[in-house]
């Protein structure tokens, strides 16, 4: 039982890698609470968008996670 976290752009630098697996948890808050506080802070900044399995999430509070979900943390895009 696990979740996959993906860190794009400068979040990769904060996390130290572009992705990692974490133990399954049903809510985002629980996932974040298990991370390094500095990383959790960076992931919850106002400008960061979250996509679950490739779909953007607007209301993260209402989010219910499922085993195997991929959570991508997306900083503001910097242009092609």
């Amino acid at each position, binding site marked *: 039982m696990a979740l996959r976290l993906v860190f794009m*752009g400068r979040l990769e*630098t904060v996390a130290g890698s572009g992705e990692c697996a974490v133990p399954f948890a049903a809510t985002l808050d629980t996932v974040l609470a298990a991370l390094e506080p500095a990383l959790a802070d960076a992931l919850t900044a106002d400008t960061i968008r979250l996509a679950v399995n490739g779909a953007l999430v607007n209301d993260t509070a209402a989010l219910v996670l499922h085993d195997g979900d991929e959570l991508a943390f997306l900083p503001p895009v*910097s242009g092609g």
Partner: protein
Amino acid sequence: MARDVRLLTAPFDPQAELARFSADRALAGGIVSFLGQVRGDASVEALELQYYEPLTLPGMESLADDAMGRWPLEGLLIIHRTGLMHPGDPIVLVSAAARHRRDAFAAAEFAMDHLKSESWFWKREKANGEWRWIEPRTVDFDDLKRWQ
């Protein structure tokens, strides 16, 4: 083949792509193209573009559909590189073909403005041996507002 949208992880030849695109556009009177390449500033040694597979290409395809819906185009080509690039390397090629010149100019500029400010790319540059993530530029958002 009216719409051709590609996300590439390896180098491409913009002139070969343009030659093929314009040969297929027999009806078009005009073709407007934008070629973006890594600037040859002495300071920038390399550039890396990241993308997120589930969002980036679908977003580009949706942008192309939007442009095709707004202007009467004979064809639209969007090619975008990702990965590691060096000065002079092509990054992006947008080409819009239309019977009327104004439509081709508008569609190409619309596509570029949206690629620059809304597409799912994250960019970092290497200068003096150090990598630095690039933040969005205010001017890109101003460019985007023109279409709203």
